[in-house]
């Protein structure tokens, strides 16, 4: 029953979130603020993780394909496909679930327990839409850019690590990056990322919006938001992979 209750409340909340906004101008202004807060502020962590993950994927591939029958360009090809197909969308989304998911749940949860949401409702503002819709639009629009950036930086990190450790040459790596390239993989990753961004924001907002009690409950909501967003990212990863790549 608990699960059905959550599912029902989640969709009712979404219904309120996507109802007609009071004033488009205000929502536009809030969306720009959220792009800065949730999107631009995530560039640093995504860049750092991507460069190191690109480096590690390259080095591990190199040490596991030392057999001379494997061509060296295989390292670049593996790094590229790993980054494009999984890392830059799924793993980056999991990282964002931790960063922006907890941020959203704790921000909205604190507003709930300090009666700021009640204050909005009393004024006649649709608090669900005002607080959540700009966050959803901001993350769904901006996260594909983070995904693209992660791909580029990850591939760059792989090249730096590969050349610096001497496991391959620049020519081999560049050849591998270009070899049998399927542009659709990028589209696939971007679609996945946009859907993951929606899941992270809406699930985290749901947990924040229905926080009751005090700071302890806000902390619990924040944890639930991260855990459940992560689970749904992994679940939807399987579904989307089957739908988009089969």
């Amino acid at each position, binding site marked *: 029953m608990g699960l059905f209750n959550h599912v029902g409340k989640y969709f009712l909340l979404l219904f309120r979130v996507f109802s007609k906004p009071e004033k488009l101008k205000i929502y536009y202004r809030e969306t720009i603020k959220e792009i800065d807060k949730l999107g631009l502020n995530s560039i640093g962590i995504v860049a750092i993780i991507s460069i190191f993950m690109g480096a590690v994927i390259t080095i591990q591939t190199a040490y596991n394909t030392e057999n001379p029958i494997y061509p060296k360009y295989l390292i670049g090809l593996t790094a590229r496909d790993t980054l494009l197909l999984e890392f830059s969308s799924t793993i980056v989304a999991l990282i964002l679930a931790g960063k922006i998911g907890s941020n959203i749940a704790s921000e909205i949860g604190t507003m709930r327990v300090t009666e700021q949401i*009640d204050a909005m409702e009393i*004024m006649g503002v649709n608090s669900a839409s005002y607080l959540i819709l700009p966050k959803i639009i901001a993350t769904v629009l901006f996260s594909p850019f983070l995904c693209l950036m992660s791909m580029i930086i990850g591939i760059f990190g792989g090249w730096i690590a590969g050349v610096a450790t001497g496991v391959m040459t620049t020519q081999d790596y560049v050849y591998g990056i270009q070899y049998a390239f399927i542009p659709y993989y990028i589209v696939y990753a971007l679609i996945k990322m946009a859907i993951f961004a929606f899941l992270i924001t809406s699930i985290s907002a749901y947990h924040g919006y229905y926080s009751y009690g005090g700071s302890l409950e806000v902390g619990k909501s924040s944890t639930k938001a991260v855990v459940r967003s992560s689970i749904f990212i992994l679940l939807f990863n399987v579904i989307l992979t089957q739908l988009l790549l089969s």
Partner: protein
Amino acid sequence: MIEVKNVFKSFNETHVLKNINVLFEKGKTNLIIGQSGSGKTVLLKSIVGLHDVDEGEIVFDDTVFNKLEFKEKKEMRKQIGMLFQGGALFDSATVEENVMYPLDMFTEMSLDEKRDRANECLKRVNIINVNELFPSEISGGMQKRVAIARAIALNPKYLFCDEPNSGLDPQTAILIDDLIKELTIEYNMTTIVNTHDMNSVMEIGDKVMFIYKGEKWWEGTKEDIFDTQNKELNNFIFASKLSQKIRELKNHKN
């Protein structure tokens, strides 16, 4: 005028409000008093529509508020101002932005007009030179006054205050009480204040309703309180040694 008619409210098996009937008059500060857990806040939140009542009617002048459609209720809310116990100012907005918020959402005023109105409201509650500060950078008493300024920004017909003096020193509490009283007369609002502060009762209680275990136990004016024979109300009012002393002095004088 706000009339509460036969209102019942329960949470699961707990009956919080039991057949409440009361009339809150226009241009007066109407107080709801009672112990913690007696149902004061639930009653106030039921009146403003934050809780749906199980039975009964909440009538704002001639409109049955709790039976309105969502859109009509939303329109009606623009005539309501509320001061919450903790102020409920938006943390991420400055003092000026907080007061401008309802104007931003519901008016077509230009930025200058909104700023002028916000400053007018802030000046009315004696707040100056803090427009650019955030709520966390001002004192509790100032936060309450800013919250009042935000509540009156749209010239409401109804003002609700949930324990406006909680966490304030006695002098600041009196300032807040006086401000609520003055604004009620100035804007000719129907004001309902939820409190368990006896100073407030004596300062601004034009009409007082005592709620006990979810039921209306007594109603009258602040002058009637000293002469009441209601046991539970007496226990509540004269709980402190100071108030007992005042009663003794009054009786002695009589």
